[in-house]
């Protein structure tokens, strides 16, 4: 296990290096000249030149990259270019918990919904319940999330008034209030993921249920519920867990629509805002953080296979 972990970490470092370089290069594709962004239009060329010099933009690319990477490794992502000038890391630190919480809550809800639904579907595959759930899943998948979000806001916030429309209460302020405000946005995120997980898990469950060990468990007199939860779920969960990791990583940076709908100060809004204003240090820093989280999440997922399947654990010893 130790050697596998070491190998994995090495791979991750390589991936992160590539991602960081990509991120860094990406910024040179931004249409705005950072000097113009900072000073505004209509200044003397010498003034722009001075800013460029100060930001180190005149250095050769490799030097700039290494400089940036060196600071990034020590946790210094620089300052924002666009005023008000603040530490990039502070801005990320403010936005990240919102996104992580939304993603984790959304995923949690999706699992909570999809596991029973998939089991119900797979238990009598092809039956009425299965067909209804499958149709529902496709229906949900085909609705764009902004539409689903609007509908959910309309029903639960505007009509029923059960949940607030658009506010964010930090977890540190009040856990109850925080969950109350996070519920609807998490639900919107959970919808599409639920549909996806249900489909994947259902199919894998159906395959597992054909196995002899299911028949053997039945022949021992175990109940259908016991067989479903204790025998079938774990061997069937690999595809779903993989998908979960990908979704979780992806959601951290791409809950923009939900953040926008609910006016939430998450990573998506942060990156989009920075890109629009040409705040290149902000974009670089935020994207790098997202990439690190993505890669770490997937490392955890990889390690979880060993927990789920003892044969994998054994193979790496």
């Amino acid at each position, binding site marked *: 296990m130790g050697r596998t972990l070491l190998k994995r970490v090495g791979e991750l470092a390589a991936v992160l290096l590539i991602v960081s370089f990509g991120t860094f290069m990406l910024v040179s594709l931004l249409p705005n000249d950072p000097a113009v962004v900072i000073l505004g239009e209509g200044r003397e060329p010498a003034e722009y030149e001075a800013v460029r010099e100060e930001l180190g933009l005149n250095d050769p690319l490799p030097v700039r990259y290494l400089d940036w990477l060196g600071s990034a490794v020590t946790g210094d992502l620089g300052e924002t270019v666009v005023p008000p000038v603040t530490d990039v890391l502070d801005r990320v630190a403010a936005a990240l918990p919102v996104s992580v919480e939304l993603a984790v809550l959304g995923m949690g809800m999706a699992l909570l919904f999809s596991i029973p639904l998939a089991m119900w579907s797979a238990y009598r595959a092809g039956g009425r319940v299965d067909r209804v759930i499958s149709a529902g899943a496709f229906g949900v998948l085909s609705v764009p999330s902004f539409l689903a979000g609007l509908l959910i806001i309309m029903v639960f916030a505007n009509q029923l008034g059960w949940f607030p429309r658009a506010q964010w209460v930090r977890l540190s302020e009040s856990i109850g209030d925080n969950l109350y405000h996070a519920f609807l946005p998490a639900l919107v995120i959970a919808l599409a993921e639920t549909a996806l997980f249900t489909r994947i898990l259902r199919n894998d469950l159906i395959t597992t249920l054909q196995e*002899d060990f299911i028949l053997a468990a039945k022949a*021992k007199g175990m109940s259908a519920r016991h067989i479903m939860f204790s*025998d079938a779920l774990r061997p069937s969960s690999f595809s779903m867990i993989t998908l979960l990791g990908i979704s979780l990583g992806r959601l951290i940076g791409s809950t923009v629509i939900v953040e926008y709908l609910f006016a939430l100060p998450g990573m998506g809004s942060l990156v989009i805002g920075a890109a629009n204003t040409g705040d290149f240090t902000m974009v670089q820093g935020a994207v790098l953080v997202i990439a690190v989280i993505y890669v770490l999440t997937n490392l955890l997922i990889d390690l979880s296979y060993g927990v789920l*399947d003892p044969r994998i654990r054994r193979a790496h010893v």
Partner: protein
Amino acid sequence: MSSSSAALQERSGAARETPVLVVDDLRTQIHTPHGDVQAVDGISFTLGRGETLGVVGESGSGKSVLGRTIMGLYTTGPTMTVTGRVLIAGKDVHALSASELRELWGGDVGMVFQDPMTALNPVKKVGVHLTESLRKRRGMNRPQAKARAAELLALVGIPEPRRRLDQYPHELSGGMRQRVVIAMALANEPALLIADEPTTALDVTVQRQILDLLARLQDELGMAIMLISHNLGVVAGRADRVAVMYAGRVVETADAAALFDAPHHPYTEALLEAIPRLHQPPHVRLAAIDGAPPNMVAPPVGCRFAPRCRYAQPDCTEAPPSLDPAMANGVVTPGHSFACYHPVNAGGQ
């Protein structure tokens, strides 16, 4: 399976009790996209305490479906229709409710599966396989169930049972796994054990060990065994009686000795000839049965073996022969029946 005379006496005494298993005109029709398949087509027999019935036939002859239908694992539903009756310890299997059926499975009947690689859940420890049914069905607490599980492993001849409880199936050899599967089936001391090709996936040397184990367990626990195999060699010397299945029907059934001595059905004869023997001279072609089992969506009219039978006559393809008692010198041979118009070894008829 038991050979001692004491066991024989006990068996004849047991025959007067209620049989452990009564199968009466059992039919299993499987609905497939290509049409309905009569996988089990009117099979009847009884099995007493301590008795072993060998069920033999080629792949696709319906013997596994028969086993699973007897278990009640296959019941009438969207994919199949089951008619006829199965009584296990006097209980009508196909009339039981779902919870009664679970009680039956956890108690009166156990099943051993063909492939121990797939019959154990790869993500569960050996101990869990054994203790879960003891706890759920027997209401034992954790330490009780664990102690009993270790006993069961010792019973099936697994050394260091305590340590094995904490191992995963993939850490055990094939033979060990099959012993675990048998221990699982024995957990609640069933009156009937259905062993569906218990040795097919194992090495030849291990096959023998497993069959010896089943024989010993039968002597110790007095259960009835239904031993399903495609190999007459496996059944030889292990079964008290043998039923030969072909295309969903029993074509011949007799006491094992009588069947091996003088098979009456050409299919049985062909199966016996197909067993390779050590005393055969070298470089002799192994006997095989020409052709393949019939397409079961549209089986042949008349005798289903007729298209492959070397003794077939025109009347064989007209109507199916019924399973009638064998006669020797004008006297019915007890327990021996066959379904053939032109039997072999039937000089006395």
